């Protein structure tokens, strides 16, 4: 697997799009820290951008890349390697490439600009989100043969997790406000990887009050370190579940 991943990730890293993504992240990181003198606030602004951009780029780039390498996957399938190997090689290649962009664009400058615990958590959250959304993109790509449809599904995932889901949660909390909703909200938050990532950092930044009801409750329920472990654990579930489901489909797919 690593043999294939070595060559494929090299190919993706030379992709112009990855270079632009890295540059964009660098610009955002530097501008956030130069605009705001309070590093906590700067981290928070950066967090909001990371939570929007990282999932979007990961899911769209992965889907497009999967379809562009369709013929290449075909060629690999004619070689004496199992489908699982090819599948995981592709997953790791894309994850490595996108993580490298994120590390160069956000992680390294942050370590220099503002070395703190919350920075480390922001770096971790971004990386985990990359893994989650690359896996979701594989799910979208394997589901259909049509590139346009797959990109549509991928974008739908993004819209759902960034916009629609928040609306749904608000609606539920609002309409059932007469009932004790603590545990329900907690469960609902676990169903959205972006919320999980947000919680990691907000707990660390001690800004959980900003998240309102859920954040305050979350902090109360877990204390901060347990909350982080819970979130990270669920983000791993969010990576593995779509990744393995899509693999089952890929192994039986007609290429």
């Amino acid at each position, binding site marked *: 697997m690593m*043999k*294939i991943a070595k*060559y*494929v990730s*090299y*190919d*993706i890293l*030379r*992709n112009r799009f990855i270079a632009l993504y890295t540059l964009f992240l660098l610009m955002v990181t530097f501008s956030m820290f130069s605009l705001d003198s309070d590093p906590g606030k700067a981290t928070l602004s950066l967090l909001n951008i990371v939570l929007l951009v990282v999932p979007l780029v990961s899911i769209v780039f992965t889907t497009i890349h999967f379809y*562009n*390498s*369709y*013929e*290449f996957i*075909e*060629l*690999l*399938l*004619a*070689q*004496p*390697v*199992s*489908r699982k190997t090819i599948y995981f090689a592709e997953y790791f290649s894309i994850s490595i490439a996108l993580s490298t962009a994120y590390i160069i664009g956000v992680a390294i400058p942050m370590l220099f600009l503002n070395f703190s615990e919350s920075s480390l958590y922001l770096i971790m959250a971004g990386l985990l989100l990359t893994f989650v959304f690359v896996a979701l993109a594989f799910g979208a790509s394997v589901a259909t043969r049509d590139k346009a449809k797959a990109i549509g599904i991928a974008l739908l995932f993004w819209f759902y997790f960034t916009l629609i889901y928040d609306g749904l949660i608000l609606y539920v909390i609002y309409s059932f406000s007469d009932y004790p909703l603590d545990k329900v909200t907690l469960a609902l938050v676990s169903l959205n990887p972006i919320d999980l990532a947000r919680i990691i950092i907000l707990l660390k930044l001690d800004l959980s009050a900003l998240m309102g009801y859920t954040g305050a409750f979350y902090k109360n329920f877990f204390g901060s370190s347990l909350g982080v472990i819970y979130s990270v654990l669920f983000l791993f579930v969010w990576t593995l579940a779509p990744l393995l489901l899509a693999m089952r489909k890929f192994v*039986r797919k*007609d*290429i």
Partner: protein
Amino acid sequence: MIIISAVNKRFGKLEVLKSIYAEFNHGKSYAMIGPNGSGKTTLIKCILGMVLPDSGTINVNGKSIANDWSYRNLVGYMPQIGRYPDQMKIGQIFDMIRDLRQDQSHIDEDLIKEFNLDHMSDKRMHTLSGGTRQKVSASLAFLFNPRIMILDEPTAGLDPIAVEILKEKIIAEKNKDRTFLITSHIMSDLDELTSNVVYLEEGKILFNDTIDLLKEETGEIKLGRAIATIMKRNLKESERV
């Protein structure tokens, strides 16, 4: 040797392969002929394990290929359209595929040399023309001296010199106790390269025997005309029914 028995495949409502039985033996080369959409590529992909048949079995050298990938050590495949990762260099493609094969004992780099690919191993794939990519695909297929060669439209997109090089290579190799499966729409090529004809139409094999027998049966001297005669005959029969 490839034995295909009772293979069925449908894509949704469309029945692409209808209970296919066929044997492809070592030492022979087979031309797969049929109208567009007759199931040639699907059959090839079934043999390569890319398309999984709904029912039926495919055996390569006595072993079923279902859930097994090791048989592909014996197979060389040249796809109809070869697309490679844009930023990879020609040399890297060859290195990578060589990394994937365990058996490195019979490396055959003739085609790489004759196509002059060794002089451009630093070129990136996206800078190459379609013909050059075909040359890469052809060289890859022959690289490991496989017992079974599957070539899907090998001469499409190649310049006349490259076509001749490739044809000479196929003719030289086919005498070495191999199985060749070649699809093409260029009958004169197939006439030169192959000894047997597999004629597919609407997912069924209508003819699988030597070219000589086909010519004799139809009374034609050229393969192209013989196939045309068969196609017309089938058309008339289906009209009668």
